[in-house]
């Protein structure tokens, strides 16, 4: 069953206007009218994708994108308990900022994007000790380890974390990102891939998980 009525239109419009409060009311209406949770999920994701593409072509600003992301995350949290809801992907990601680095904004955005795209996210926070990454990957059965560093002095510890992961959790893929990194450095550190921004992280992730 697929809903096509005014509530669906209102959900689309609320997502487009990044209005979490209106969206909340619409989602309550959707549940009442029996609109499938999966349809709502895809509507929300579709809007996020549309704004992401607009940002990639410089047609919108980063705050606008983040406003949409907040709205979509809020909506997904609300429909998660609806009957028939399943996430878009069935994968767990462990993410964190490496030890010594207090900058977590970039990591928070990436974690938000992963959640919006349906990944189960284990967010270890910032200034995370080396051993905590592999422990979380093992304990949570994660398929992906995402490491972030914002300073040239802290990014170097990624090499050790990646070395640990290759030995202790060899099946997990590793993605790295952050201001001082590059594709070349990521390769040098032994990561599977490098995401230069929040806009490309999902494509890079899908690419590396498909290998």
């Amino acid at each position, binding site marked *: 069953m697929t809903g096509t009525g005014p509530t669906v239109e209102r959900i689309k419009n609320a997502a*487009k*206007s*990044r*209005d979490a409060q209106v969206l909340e009311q619409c989602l309550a209406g959707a549940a009442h009218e029996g609109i499938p949770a999966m349809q709502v999920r895809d509507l929300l994701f579709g809007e996020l994708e549309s704004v992401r593409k607009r940002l990639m072509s410089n047609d*919108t*600003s*980063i*705050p*606008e994108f*983040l*406003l*949409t*992301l*907040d709205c979509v*995350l809020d909506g997904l949290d609300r429909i998660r308990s609806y009957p028939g809801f399943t996430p878009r992907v069935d994968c767990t990601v462990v993410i964190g900022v490496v030890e*010594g*680095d*207090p*900058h977590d*904004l970039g990591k*928070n*955005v990436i974690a*938000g994007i992963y959640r919006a795209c349906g990944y189960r996210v284990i967010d270890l926070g910032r200034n995370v000790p080396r051993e905590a990454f592999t422990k979380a990957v093992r304990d949570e059965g994660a398929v992906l380890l995402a490491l972030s560093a914002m*300073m*040239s*002095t*802290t990014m170097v510890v990624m090499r050790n974390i990646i070395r640990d992961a290759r030995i202790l959790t060899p099946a997990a893929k590793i993605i790295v990102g952050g201001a001082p990194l590059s594709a070349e450095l990521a390769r040098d550190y032994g990561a599977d891939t490098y995401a230069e921004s929040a806009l490309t992280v999902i494509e890079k992730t899908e690419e590396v998980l498909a290998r």
Partner: protein
Amino acid sequence: MNTQPAILSPRLTRTFMEHLKRRSRATLGTGRNVSPGAARLERMLNEALDAVAREVRPKVMYRMLPVRSLTGKSIRTDAGAVKSVKLARLAQNCRGDVFVVFVIATLGEAFEDLYRRETSLSGQFIIDAVGSECAELVTDGWNNKWNSLIKRRGHECSLRFSPGYCDWKLEGQTVIFGALDADAIGVTLTKDYLMIPAKSISAVALAAKKVPAAAPCAFCRSRSCPWRRMEFTGVP
């Protein structure tokens, strides 16, 4: 010339906050009022600015030390050596006694609390951008005051330089923290040379009777440098 450390507590005046709003808008790329979230973002920006004005009390600490010796690679003071070939070259071409002024400016722990209290990603992004601009403006404000003071004493001053930029490695933080007891303004340096609270700026500037250029960019040929602050003039 005074070499004792001094602490300032600059006020976030209405003029300062208006300037901060303009700068924050420019950084965020908002304020054009054409996007679906424009009104909401403007409201969030205003809330962030109000919170900063209400809760943040910036501090600036500075101290001037005479240059003890100059090599082609570093500028030696009683607090340690500033190891930058570019800056050393600028110092070598100053006239009269040369001084290094060390400065640390911070928005303090109150700003960190503001950031931590914000749970939405868009809100975090906005408050972070406001904080970065605020720290820059506070340091600019000190810079302007310092330049006027130095000028009155018949000296000139260079622009400020921070470790981690140009050829001055981040390890250079230890010289600045050696010159200033930053604990007095609540700033600490981690083993990775990062400052806590994060919205802090550390820098040095040169002062002398005659400083040949505001920045070593004047005689640096690296034209593609993203941090270039002035045109190449070939000076000195």
